[in-house]
């Protein structure tokens, strides 16, 4: 008599098993040959979750060599992609998101109680059992810093050519061109016809595009804030440095246009809910320079007002702008030497830095705060387009 043994389908425990000889294929399909567009519509940072589920199975079987090998191949694979796509914002941000997510997973499922406070009971079942991967977490953290720096470099490379024309030369306020300093109108209008002329909308469009990519790829919100603080700092530094070197833009009308442009950027930050990034604070020297161009520069009271307002500009920068200041027309006077001396006398007690220009390449240190995921490993579905059918769900 035939006996039919009915076996209950085993529950997926959120682990993925593969044969050692398939590791290279796994890294190729999941890391080096992967195009971020293939994963649109799936859960953000899917590669990071898949890699964690593979690591977890190797941990479960107590196979330290397999864990070592997979993590090393993953890290080298990510580095290879970044090198190949070193000017690709989307690819770089994709791997920043995934590297950070893998780092978060190694913390969230490490078994360290400090990282488990937000875990569900089910998530706690998915913790590593045998190995402590603290040292690999350090490597992933160092790698994340490298990727972040590459991302900023790419974004800055895109934005930098736009900054001077968009912030200082383009006139979006109607009627302002009529009050440009005499003798400089031609240069300004010839720039509009040139190849390297941009308006502020171009910068805003570009930042919209950056922000959309970062959000779609599930980069941690805290990191997104840091990206825009860094980019706003660069916009501030490049604009201020140009202002400090160009007489033709040191005028009342440029001050007016500049203040308007900065307010548009502030509005963009609010619209994207990025106001707590500290980006506006990095623009403070430029905001004050714009105000300095617009303030009266004649009496002792004017000098006092300038000194109390321009706290983020150095004495050297204030004096330089006053020296370069170009009257709008024959009815406006130049800033007198006596007025500049009054300013210098009032500011002499300040312990200002000596350099005139800002370091536009300065980078704020980046932080990657722990950001556990509410996702449970056994709910993750692997799409067929990844060609990972050799992974067995365990």
């Amino acid at each position, binding site marked *: 008599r035939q006996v039919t043994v009915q076996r209950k389908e085993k529950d997926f425990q959120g682990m993925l098993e593969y044969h050692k000889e398939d590791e290279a294929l796994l890294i190729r399909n999941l890391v080096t040959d992967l195009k971020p567009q293939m994963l649109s519509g799936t859960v953000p940072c899917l590669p990071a979750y898949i890699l964690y589920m593979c690591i977890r199975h190797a941990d479960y079987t107590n196979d*330290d060599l397999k*864990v*070592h090998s997979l*993590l*090393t191949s993953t*890290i*080298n694979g990510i*580095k290879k992609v970044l090198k190949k796509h070193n000017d690709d914002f989307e690819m770089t941000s994709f791997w920043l998101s995934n590297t950070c997510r893998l780092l978060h997973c190694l913390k969230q499922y490490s*078994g360290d109680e400090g990282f488990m406070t937000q875990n569900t009971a089910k998530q706690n079942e998915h913790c*590593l*059992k*045998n*190995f*402590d*991967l*603290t*040292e*690999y977490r*350090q*490597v992933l953290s*160092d*790698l994340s810093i*490298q990727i972040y720096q590459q991302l900023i470099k790419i974004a800055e490379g895109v934005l930098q050519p736009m900054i001077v024309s968009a912030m200082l030369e383009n006139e979006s306020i109607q009627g302002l061109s009529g009050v440009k300093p005499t003798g400089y109108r031609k240069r300004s209008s010839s720039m509009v016809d040139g190849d390297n002329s941009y308006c502020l909308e171009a910068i805003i469009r570009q930042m919209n595009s950056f922000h959309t990519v970062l959000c779609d790829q599930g980069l941690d919100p805290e990191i997104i804030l840091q990206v825009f603080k860094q980019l706003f700092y660069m916009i501030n530094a490049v604009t201020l440095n140009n202002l400090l070197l160009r007489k033709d833009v040191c005028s009342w009308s440029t001050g007016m246009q500049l203040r308007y442009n900065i307010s548009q950027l502030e509005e963009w930050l609010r619209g994207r809910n990025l106001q707590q990034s500290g980006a506006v604070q990095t623009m403070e020297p430029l905001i004050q320079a714009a105000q300095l161009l617009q303030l009266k520069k004649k009496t002792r009271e004017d000098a006092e007002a300038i000194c109390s307002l321009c706290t983020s500009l150095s004495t050297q920068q204030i004096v330089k702008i006053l020296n370069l200041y170009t009257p709008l027309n024959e009815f406006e006077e130049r800033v007198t030497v006596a007025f500049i001396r009054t300013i210098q006398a009032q500011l002499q007690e300040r312990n200002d830095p000596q350099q005139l220009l800002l370091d536009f390449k300065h980078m704020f240190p980046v932080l990657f705060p722990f950001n556990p995921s509410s996702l449970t490993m056994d709910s993750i579905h692997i799409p067929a387009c990844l060609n990972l059918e050799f992974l067995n769900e365990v």
Partner: protein
Amino acid sequence: STQRPRPRVLLKAPTLAEMEEMTTSEEEESP
């Protein structure tokens, strides 16, 4: 259960720079 979890074994990892050196020398070795 009152059983304490078994302590996990620390897996030593090379630093990122050491990994870089390892892959560079591997690339040099291969034709």
